């Protein structure tokens, strides 16, 4: 049977041990070799710091709350529907929207790495990438939810989606009561990043 590469002599051990210096050393080397344009790095950082974030996902959620036709289409083929809104790209090539109800609470995790719907939610938060969340979300989601201050009714089932492939999951939180007259912008303010991962409920007005 063929064997995966040797686990020894990891190349990173050739670089400085301080992580900030290691990144700097790699960047310097790749620039010297002509493989990296530092201006392109700046552009990538600007994209994920300032252009792509959870407001994209919140816009999708609020449309699902307020437009039954949009909601039905989103649940049927999220990839096409969110691409129509301009939300497509790296780590969002294959989208599924899952809707919370009185009977079912959905929650996303990636136990094997940190898969996350970047075009809709941006870069994942630190806790999403933490060992604790990756290890525990699948085994004891209710205890994890409690650490976020969320307690579900006893009868409500929890369905945890472990992103083991390139499917990316967007949780549609339940629309809070008392929000009937609110406009789209105000409703978006109730949709937190965590509520679209499933570790929070939508806010109340």
């Amino acid at each position, binding site marked *: 049977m063929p064997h*995966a590469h040797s686990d020894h002599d990891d190349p990173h051990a050739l670089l400085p041990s301080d992580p900030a210096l290691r990144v700097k050393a790699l960047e310097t080397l790749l620039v010297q*070799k002509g493989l990296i344009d530092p201006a392109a790095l700046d552009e990538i950082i600007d994209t*994920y710091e300032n252009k792509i*974030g*959870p407001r994209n996902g919140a816009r999708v959620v609020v449309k699902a709350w307020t437009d039954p036709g949009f909601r039905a289409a989103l649940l049927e083929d999220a990839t096409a529907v969110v691409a129509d809104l301009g939300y497509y790209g790296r780590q969002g090539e294959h989208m599924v929207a899952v809707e919370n109800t009185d009977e079912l609470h959905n929650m996303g995790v990636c*136990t094997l790495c940190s898969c996350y719907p970047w075009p809709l939610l941006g870069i994942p938060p630190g806790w999403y990438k933490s060992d604790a969340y990756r290890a525990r979300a699948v*085994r004891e989601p209710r205890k994890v939810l409690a650490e976020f201050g969320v307690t579900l009714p006893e009868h409500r*089932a929890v369905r945890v989606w472990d992103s083991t492939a390139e499917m990316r999951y967007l949780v549609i939180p339940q629309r809070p009561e008392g929000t009937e007259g609110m406009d789209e912008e105000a409703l978006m303010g109730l949709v937190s990043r965590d509520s679209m991962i499933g570790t929070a409920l939508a806010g109340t007005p």
Partner: protein
Amino acid sequence: MSRVHDMGGRFGDGPVVPEAGDVRFHADWHPRALALTLASGSLGQWNLDTSRHARERLSPKDYSRFFYYEKWMGGLATLLVDSGTVSRAELAGTVPPERSPLADRALKADQVAAVLAKGGPVDRPGTIAACFAPGDLVVARRFAENEKIDGGHTRLPSYAAGARGRILRLHGTHILPDAHAHGLGEAPEPLYAVAFAASQLWAHPEHPRDEVVLDMWQSYLTPAA
């Protein structure tokens, strides 16, 4: 046996610590490491699955002690050397860096938006018929290991290995990471969302109605007896 990244269900990690909704990075070098990884990836010398496997091959000691983006840097160093893009001596700084023949492919700032927006879809035309339909009962492969390569890449977590589940939906036909990470082609297969009752996965399930859904390729599954 599994590798250290396969941590679903593990005990002992302590509480999850929530953070404010607008936090993106926790140190200046984090976004730099992210950008360096994406820009290097655009040189086309490896794919998503080889890059995941490179991070997973970090030693358990390194994987556990590294910050998140440090794992990315560890993986990137491996990919650069394995693909011949950078030599070990260049990494170590014992020889002057040589200009790369790939330099004309370096990502430019004005190409970034288009490259990120284009993404890298992994669905392919279906050449293998789907064996399962929603509602079918299935059993996941007994070993959470690559079937062809000893110690190779797989996306079957060990906590679900051997467990009995039910097909929720067919996603389409997707590239098989177990092949793609090892230069064995795309080998696309039907991909399913499979629901497993918590009681199928854990000796002490939190709640009788809870379940975990995993995405699994057809070759990870057999019909339940």
